[in-house]
């Protein structure tokens, strides 16, 4: 049995619904859930933390916590906009959980976390005038002091200044290693997910669309929806190239040849020019192929004046999905 096992989790919040989710997380894993805003990421975290009425089971370290109140679940939650308690200073925020369950290690833990996060100089300050990064560190420290078995992070990088984002990412990664945390991280940014996680889950419209190792997610998206979400270009129907195993395929703009003569490729098509614009050091050419728009990266545009325009690509460069 995994450290965390979520079985058939269903949550309704207003008209939105999370449908029948199954998620396993191993001890010490940093699992990312990727989805657009509105796909149910935050609702998922809130359901696990116990803020919504749910159906299904949530096993954490051998106990089903699905019916326990939030304060008995041993789960830490960090929201993207920190949710620091403004009626307390930084130190009191961090020590909040110790009012409810003290342990003999808490003093040592406090010193250790504060020095690791480098926030010892702001302990007496009001939380109102901290920078985004500082606030997020305080929120993380506060969650850590409660000694959670599972830490839920809701897009914690969103409110951090762009300049500090990378160092904050490094910091979160170190933190994960140092405290051997089990983390469930949600984000709309798959680059962040790639950075932190070996495994990713794609959550769209309240449903899990794919759960696979991170590299596989980008090599083999299992559906058109996932491919679109992950930013795949040129998603075209498979019947164009007479491959019947899957419904769709995708080919990267840089893997397509374009010319006024038929290119020496396995699949070639005559196309019509749609438009052209320059991106940094190359051109993005858009052409019409059977009413589908295909984007191609090209260093040159001199052939575009020709009446006959052809594109071509090889089978090895395509990815297929349904």
């Amino acid at each position, binding site marked *: 049995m995994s450290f965390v096992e979520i079985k058939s989790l269903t949550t309704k919040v207003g008209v939105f619904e999370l449908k029948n989710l199954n998620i396993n997380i191993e001890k010490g894993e940093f699992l990312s859930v990727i989805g657009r805003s509105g796909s149910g990421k935050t609702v998922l975290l809130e359901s696990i933390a116990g803020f919504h009425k749910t159906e299904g089971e949530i096993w954490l370290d051998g106990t089903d916590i699905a019916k326990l*109140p*939030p304060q008995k679940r041993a789960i830490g939650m960090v929201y993207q906009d920190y*949710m620091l308690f403004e009626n307390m200073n930084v130190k009191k925020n961090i020590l*909040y*959980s110790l*009012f409810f369950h003290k342990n003999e290690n808490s003093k040592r833990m406090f010193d250790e976390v504060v020095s690791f996060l480098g926030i010892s100089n702001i302990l007496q300050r009001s939380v109102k005038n901290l920078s985004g990064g500082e606030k997020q560190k305080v929120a993380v420290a506060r969650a850590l002091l409660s000694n959670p078995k599972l830490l839920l992070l809701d897009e914690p990088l969103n409110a951090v200044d762009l300049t500090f984002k990378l160092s904050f990412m490094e910091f979160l990664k170190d933190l994960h290693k140092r405290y051997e945390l089990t983390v469930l991280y949600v984000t709309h940014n798959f680059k962040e997910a790639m950075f932190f996680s070996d495994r990713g889950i794609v959550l769209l419209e309240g449903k899990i669309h794919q759960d696979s190792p991170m590299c596989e997610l980008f090599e083999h998206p299992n559906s058109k929806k996932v491919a679109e979400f992950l930013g795949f270009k040129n998603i075209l129907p498979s019947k164009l190239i007479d491959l019947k195993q899957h419904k769709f395929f995708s080919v990267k703009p840089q893997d397509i040849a374009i010319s006024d003569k038929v290119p020496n490729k396995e699949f070639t098509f005559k196309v019509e020019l749609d438009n052209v614009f320059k991106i940094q050091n190359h051109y993005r050419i858009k052409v019409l192929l059977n009413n589908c728009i295909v984007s191609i990266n090209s260093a040159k545009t001199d052939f575009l004046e020709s009446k006959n325009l052809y594109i071509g690509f090889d089978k090895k460069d395509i990815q297929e999905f349904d």
Partner: protein
Amino acid sequence: MERLFKFLTIIFSLGIFLFLAIPVVKIITSTSVSNLISALSDRAILNSIILTVEVSFYATVIVLATGVPLAYFLSRHNFCCKAIVEGIIDIPVMVPHVAAGIALLMVFGASGELGVAFKKIGVEFLDTKFGILVAMMFVSAPFLINSAKEGFKKVDVRLENVSKTLGANSFWTFVKITLPYARKEIINGALMMWGRGIGEFGAVVIIAYHPMTAPVMIYDRFNSFGLSYAVPVTVIMIITSIVIFSAIRIINNLFK
């Protein structure tokens, strides 16, 4: 256009401010200091003012204990007849207060259901402090409940969520997070309620002409002896209110 707008803003603001301020200034300056001192040495006047401030204070404390939980409940839950419940809470603000007094009399009077029930434990309402208390509570509770409700609505539910994940149960979350965040609105509401209670005449006079609260005494003296006898009581009443409420506002701001 720019200047005209500024000009009109100032003129209108000044107009309404003077309208509110002049009667108060006028009545305070219209009576001599010696008159005031002799009024203050009149035990009847002093007792009525103390009674008014005191009973209204008790009414406010009772509604703090009962109305704040109600306000919290209303701010956090939606249910089918919520609008009706909120409407009922607002009724005392809308009906004439004399009518409210008559409604209270029917319930708390000698033959009213609650009047009969309370009589068994020795509490009567007609012409007693308890009568004044229920009259003040009834007409002024909405100010506190509605203000507290607005305060609670402003508290992000996610703050409460985080507090719970950190080990606090609902009670401690309410005490340590929700209440401090809504404190300003609750205290403002309590002040409004206390002040409204002190000034209440219509409902009080129906259920308890005696012992006389200050507003009833002002009315009584005006009716029986004329304007010059009513003024000193009025002035002391106004000054007492101003002093109490300014002091509390200042203290509240100190602890921000």
